């Protein structure tokens, strides 16, 4: 028998209470995994989309919004000829309800620019020119909208023909409805407006060079902000709000877990007062009793963390299927997040055990000779 056995038996003596406490913690941890996974997924999904398009710098205006605000298309002219800029592509992106889908990414791309190159046709063809009333659907978008080649898609008041279904190599790309820029500008009434400039830099430029180039661009374009691709999402106010709300909701759920573990461990200490006194009478030091209680609560946290991660993964899969999120982002459930969630759960366990452990250290050993 090891000290760990003693700790495990302590938890097993009240299996129902232990189980309910585990459930309490695991719900909090599941919230962390699901919400933080989704919010981080927002960044990783969009970053992956940028990478697939070969975009290294994005000029956009994300102030106070999740989607970039439009700005004049001529802004591009001020940065296109800067040393280090290899190519630019103006884009107008919007989130719109399309037919039965509550929210879809609609991406209007400058005709002929590099942002079309990553689209590998699965079926059909590309639009013939920028004036054709046609769209290309990402593979996921086609599934969500239940469209095939030749069908029409209604965007706002316009009916556009699906001419191609393409694999864009990234979740966001595959979830998008893609059409020539002038067409989307016309449909949305954003004449001569864009929401992003994708920039490719000259081959071989390192991160420092890219940041320097961003600084140069930012001096020239007060209406937009140039940042390395992906960072523009993470630093946007919209993302910060989503992230803060995710953490806020998660922390509230975790707080409930903390109270649950504290209550359980406190009840356990009260119930085991005489047992603790007997252990003291048998020569256990108060510090060992404290360790026993803290390890019990840490183990509760650890197990709750593992269950919570599993619940979170299941929850995320369900959330992914929600109409509002379907095809828009891929949750980021990397090992780091799982480990962070389990570490939080163990911390929660230890934190919750502090007061009960302190109470256990106050038990008088003389109680062993009572009763």
């Amino acid at each position, binding site marked *: 028998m090891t000290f760990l056995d003693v700790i495990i*038996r302590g938890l097993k003596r009240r299996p129902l209470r232990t189980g309910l406490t585990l459930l309490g913690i695991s719900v909090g941890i599941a919230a962390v995994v699901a919400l933080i996974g989704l919010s981080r997924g927002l960044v990783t999904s969009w970053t992956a989309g940028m990478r697939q398009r070969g975009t290294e710098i994005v000029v956009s205006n994300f102030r106070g919004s999740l989607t970039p605000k439009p700005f004049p298309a001529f802004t591009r002219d001020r940065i296109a000829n800067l040393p280090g800029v290899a190519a630019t592509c103006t884009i107008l992106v919007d989130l719109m309800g399309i037919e039965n889908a509550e929210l879809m990414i609609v991406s209007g791309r400058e005709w002929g620019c590099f942002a079309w190159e990553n689209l590998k046709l699965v079926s059909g063809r590309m639009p013939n020119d920028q004036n054709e009333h046609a769209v290309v659907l990402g593979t996921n978008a086609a599934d969500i909208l239940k469209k095939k080649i030749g069908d029409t898609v209604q965007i706002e008041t316009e009916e556009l023909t699906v001419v191609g279904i393409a694999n864009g190599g990234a979740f966001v790309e595959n979830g998008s409805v893609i059409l020539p820029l002038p067409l989307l500008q016309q449909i949305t009434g954003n004449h001569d407006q864009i929401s992003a400039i994708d920039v490719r830099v000259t081959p071989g430029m390192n991160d420092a060079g890219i940041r320097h180039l961003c600084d140069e661009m930012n001096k020239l374009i007060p209406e937009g902000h140039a940042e390395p691709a992906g960072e523009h999402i993470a630093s946007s106010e919209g993302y910060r709000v989503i992230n803060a709300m995710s953490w806020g909701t998660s922390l509230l759920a975790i707080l409930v877990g903390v109270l649950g573990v504290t209550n359980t461990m406190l009840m356990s200490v009260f119930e085991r007062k005489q047992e603790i006194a007997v252990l003291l009478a048998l*020569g256990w030091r108060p510090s060992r009793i404290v360790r026993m209680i803290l390890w019990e609560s840490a183990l509760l946290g650890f197990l709750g963390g593992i269950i919570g991660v599993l619940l979170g993964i299941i929850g995320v899969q369900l959330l992914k299927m929600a109409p509002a999120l379907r095809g828009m982002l891929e949750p980021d459930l990397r090992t780091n997040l799982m480990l962070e969630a389990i570490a939080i759960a163990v911390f929660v366990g230890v934190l919750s055990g502090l007061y009960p452990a302190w109470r256990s250290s106050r038990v*008088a050993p003389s109680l062993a000779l009572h009763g």
Partner: protein
Amino acid sequence: MNLTSSPSKAGAASRYVFEATGLIKDFDDGQVHALRGVDLQIEDGEFVAIVGPSGSGKTTLLQMLGALDRPSEGTLKYRGESLLDLPDPAAYRAHEIGFVFQAFHLLPTFTAIENVQIPMFEDHKSRAERQDRALELLKAVGLEERVNHYPAKLSGGERQRVAIARSLANSPSVLLADEPTGNLDSESANHVLDLLRSLHADRRMTLILVTHDMSIAACAQRAIQMKDGCAVFDGDPAKLSIHRIA
């Protein structure tokens, strides 16, 4: 009975295991006087019965001897060293004292052999050493067939024998037993008493046993009778009944 003999681990500066002078213990801010100036000396290897009615202070005295509580006034020495100045009372309880309780106090979610191992966690024994030692002790108390039984599956007498094995886990030199037969039928009580007596004889342990049963006290070498927090008799148990009548 063949238990590994363990001489006292503490120094033998004094001929007495315990020396108490003017031991007073008050509770509830002095409203309750549990001990009212007890003086006693107990020699190494003695079998002493502390007798008296409920509330006479015998259990409180046992608590003081086991360093489970501190006296309000007076001095109390263990082998010449003050128990009140112990730097580590837990180490004293772990290595010098073995406790046997009236209600056994076995941990219900642990088997007999696991219960016996509990005190050994403070003795830096390896897992295998703890296991071997516990098995040895359970064999010594005649429970080798019951090592993997949980307390709920043991009779009262068997539980108390497990508790006695547990009390010997770290080879203490003093056994403090609080009404060890109080919860047992007469047959089991006799078994337990025989076990304690043989432990005392074979290991030359100091055995201090609290009881209100005069027939059990009669087995001791010496009886101390407590009444209203005072030791009113200290001597041959055979004379205890005469003293009571007187």
